[in-house]
């Protein structure tokens, strides 16, 4: 087969999408919480590669910096700061509630898939009757000189500068609030639950 740009694009799309879906399932089903966090890191890195495939390089880098590094290390610190890690290893058993949840999620998946893939042509007549779907017009213009970061800066600092500043104020407020909340709860150890775990560690 001739190797061209479209083929390579498709190859990387399928590679990264399959990796991200598999490791997102790993977040759900891996029994240990640390393995789940590492699986989440790999899923986020592959999603960042998908962002790069979508011509937005800066967001891919921001995805790696924010999600795959900062957020994951925050999760790891939360796991480490809680002394009794056995609290997190909750044994999950199969129950009717889980079955209902899985059934409703699958139903949601099928409904959403039919709604925007036009029902794979099966429900064309029904969809045309109820006029649920207009055809997606795809503008496949290849702009070679589009710089994602330039457009992002223009958008953020011209039309959306108020929201941008508001987000920074929000981050400041949340940082102060979390610090206050954490410092307030330092001195009150209510239940000494850490004795048994220390004995086990020794």
């Amino acid at each position, binding site marked *: 087969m001739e190797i061209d740009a*479209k083929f390579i*694009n*498709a190859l990387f*799309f399928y590679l990264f*999408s399959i990796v*991200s*879906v598999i490791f*997102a399932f790993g*977040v759900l089903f891996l029994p240990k*919480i640390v393995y*789940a966090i590492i699986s*989440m890191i790999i899923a*986020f890195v592959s*999603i960042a590669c*998908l*962002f790069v495939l*979508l011509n*937005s390089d800066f*967001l891919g880098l*921001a*995805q790696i910096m924010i*999600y795959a590094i900062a*957020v994951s290390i925050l*999760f790891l610190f*939360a796991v480490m700061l*809680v002394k*009794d890690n056995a609290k*997190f290893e*909750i044994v999950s058993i199969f129950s009717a509630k889980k079955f209902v949840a899985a059934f409703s*999620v699958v139903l*949601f*998946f099928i409904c*959403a*898939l039919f709604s*925007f*893939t036009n029902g794979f042509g099966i429900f064309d007549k029904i969809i045309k009757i109820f006029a649920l779907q207009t055809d*997606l*017009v*795809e*503008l*496949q213009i290849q702009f070679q000189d*589009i710089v*994602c970061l330039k*457009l*992002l800066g223009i*958008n*953020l600092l011209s039309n*959306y500068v108020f*929201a941008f500043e508001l*987000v920074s104020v929000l*981050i400041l407020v949340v*940082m102060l609030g*979390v610090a206050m*909340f954490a410092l307030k*709860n330092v001195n*009150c*150890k*209510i*239940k000494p*639950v850490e004795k048994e775990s220390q004995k086990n560690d020794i």
Partner: protein
Amino acid sequence: MIFDISLIHYLVLALILFCIGLLGVLTSKNIIRLLMCVEIMLTSVNINFIAFANYLDLGNRLGDSVAIFVMAVSAIEVAVGLCILICLANYSNNMNIEKQNKTGGRK
């Protein structure tokens, strides 16, 4: 043709990731795993925004700037959620979220 990657491929991928996250939020009993599933849902929404910006809005790519806001708000949500989690872990023995239904007062 299978090698023509268009908008619909990215939409289906984002839908699959969203459904995985939704399944985790509905079924998991572990608070950290629930927060991770919320992160996966927000990231799938980001994929949608950037795919629409790439395929339908090439001129000014507004989806990218929305994705920046989504990232900031999700980072904030993780910080607050983990702070509550650590306080809750010092407070109670059982981290099962179905048992955390008594929130009145500390004593």
